[in-house]
């Protein structure tokens, strides 16, 4: 048990910092506001720039310099970093609030999945996907398949040397700008096999006739994702990733070696929120209020202990365990985030619900962040699902 990483590992951090200082564009260095709810539907200009050019260039630069996925070899945008070095990388990027990409599907899900499950031709797509040259969306959730993802019914019927796809995906991030879709489809109907045994992953080109992308405006007014309708979409059979009916395994395929550090951003976010809340309390003259003091201290305690838990999870992950800690962290940080944004609104009193460019503390940033945060306890495994997972898979309670 020790607080510090080795000198060699700290040198890795210094190298990264030097690279960022030299090569990161001002937009990246400005530091992302974690509370940002996405592109406003009304904001025409930004709508065209869901992935602005500076972000595309920055991702390519990271890749070319081996800083995109440090744990990968250079040809995949990395530098063969060790697990601890990867953690340090994620620490530093989180600390400086620098995004490595504005679209995660390519590098975080598709690239690694193709490397693990794809055939030789598909594996060649991995590098450009990680570099961001190919923009992907993931076709997973459906109106009737959210938490019960295996219940998906978008159908892919074999017809000679191709599949005909019919169905609908929902909450598909980046569908508006993606060139390809990593799509989970049903190849064996529900009445013929258990639901998760009839699922196949297909690579679908988004410019294939029959695909209709309709952006969904969510509660903040932003358009982050879309519905995607498939009507008789023809997909070549060689676009199957892995084997037919064996696609469920691939839901597990992702940047497995970075799982030990995924929590860093969420913790950095709530850490920032606590700092911001303390500053806000002072601005409103509430720093002597006993109730407020207790709330802020409790928030600090939760953030600090979750941060420690994250590192503890990394240690067990680095030693080969499946690290259940990430379920704890997803659950706890998303719930805590919601609490903190709401507290920010509370501290503002009457102006807490004001969203006005010229009125209210920070012009409604906290109210907007609170609304955005509803998604965090729903998406990526809802809090209820996380608790189910913790109870059954970690605590061993019966199903």
């Amino acid at each position, binding site marked *: 048990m020790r607080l510090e990483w080795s000198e060699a590992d700290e040198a890795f951090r210094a190298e990264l910092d030097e690279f960022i200082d030299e090569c990161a564009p001002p937009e990246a260095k400005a530091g992302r506001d974690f509370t940002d709810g996405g592109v406003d539907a009304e904001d025409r200009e930004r709508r065209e720039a869901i992935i602005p050019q500076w972000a595309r260039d920055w991702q390519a630069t990271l890749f070319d310099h081996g800083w995109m996925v440090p744990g990968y070899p250079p040809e995949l945008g990395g530098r063969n970093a060790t697990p601890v070095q990867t953690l340090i990388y994620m620490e530093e990027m989180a600390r400086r609030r620098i995004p490595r990409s504005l679209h995660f599907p390519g590098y975080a899900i598709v690239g690694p999945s193709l490397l693990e499950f794809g055939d030789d031709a598909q594996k060649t797509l991995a590098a450009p996907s990680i570099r961001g040259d190919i923009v992907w969306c993931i076709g997973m959730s459906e109106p009737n398949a959210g938490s019960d993802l295996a219940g998906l019914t978008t159908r892919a019927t074999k017809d000679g040397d191709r599949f005909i796809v019919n169905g609908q995906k929902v909450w598909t991030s980046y569908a508006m700008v993606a060139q390809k879709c990593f799509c989970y489809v049903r190849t064996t109907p529900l009445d013929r096999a258990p639901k998760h045994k009839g699922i196949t992953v297909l690579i679908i080109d988004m410019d294939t006739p029959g695909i209709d992308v309709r952006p969904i405006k969510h509660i903040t007014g932003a358009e982050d994702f879309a519905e995607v309708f498939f009507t008789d979409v023809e997909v070549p059979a060689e676009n199957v990733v892995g084997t037919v009916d064996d696609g469920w395994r691939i839901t597990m395929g992702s940047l497995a070696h970075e799982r030990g550090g995924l929590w860093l951003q969420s913790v950095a976010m709530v850490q920032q929120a606590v700092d911001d809340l303390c500053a806000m309390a002072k601005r409103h003259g509430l720093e002597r209020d006993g109730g407020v003091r207790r709330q802020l*201290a409790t928030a600090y305690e939760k953030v600090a202990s979750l941060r420690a838990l994250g590192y503890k999870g990394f240690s067990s992950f680095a030693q080969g365990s499946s690290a259940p800690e990430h379920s704890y962290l997803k659950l706890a940080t998303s719930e805590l985030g919601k609490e903190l944004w709401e507290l920010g609104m509370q501290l503002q009193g009457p102006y807490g619900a004001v969203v006005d460019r010229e009125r209210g503390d920070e012009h409604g940033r906290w109210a907007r962040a609170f609304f955005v945060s509803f998604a965090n306890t729903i998406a990526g495994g809802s809090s209820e699902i996380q608790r189910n997972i913790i*109870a059954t898979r970690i605590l061993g309670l*019966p199903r």
Partner: protein
Amino acid sequence: MDFSLSDEQVLVRDTASSLLDRHCPISLVRAGIDDPSASDPLWAQLREWVVLGDGSLVDLCLFLEECGSALAPGPYFASAALALPLARAAGGDELAARIQAGDATATVAFAGEDGEWVANDDPVKTFVLEADRVDTILFVDVGGRVTVAPGQPGARQVGSLDFTRRLFEAAVPHDATVIGTAPVDEWLARATVALAAEMLGTARRLKDAAIEYAKQRVQFDVPIGSFQAIQHKLADVSVAFERAWSAVYYAAMCVDADDPDVVRAVHVAKAAAGAAATRAAKDAIQIHGGIGYTWEHDLHLAIRRAYASEHLMGTSGWHHDRLADLLLR
């Protein structure tokens, strides 16, 4: 921060666990309710481990966590986690050597009449652990001056919820021997984290008891552990425990490394441990239902330990107030 345990640390933990399994059965703990000498055979086993109080706090915490799980009564905590470090810090090497060897049991009289663990000059100290049965009591005044005097068999016991930790009032003797001055803040930080580690063990005992019960208890033809309400309760208990565990050992690492974050880390550790232990206590009894509400069932012994520990060396609320002082200065 790196939480992996060295082989030696794993050994400390495993040794503690099997030692307490063998020598601290719940029957011994129960016997102590009416007869304090019931813990003497346990002390005979634990005395060779007092030496952990002289070394890394992480190692002591690993040992104490197991003590907390077993609800171990007796003078071990006071001697190893309170008295030995204080004697050492005050330069009382001869006394420290005897305590370390397990040849003298000892405790510290620190909290004043208001019960707060803050340095003071009150003539009567309270919440002095095991004061009537230890060989030596170390007294601390407001300037960190440490004096020693013999144990006080006639001391007035302060009735506590917790049967496993006996608390007393002890008058500061006029003729106590001065052994030196100690940096009180550092000593208290170490002691608080040690207590928090012990609390983790108690929290774990309660959590694991509830999980086990939920797996076995059948109602409506199924184990109650298959009901989502029970599952979600236990998931939340588990999260609270895991984050407290990490916070406590982070604080222990900070103490050992004299890291600048130590002050905040200690407050976080005690508050988190208190939250975890009391939550586990409440949910454990709820999940056990009627049987958990009986004197005969062992559950209440752990609940008592959890709550008394929450109130010792600063409640979660007190530690939050100290954090607020630091965050909002």
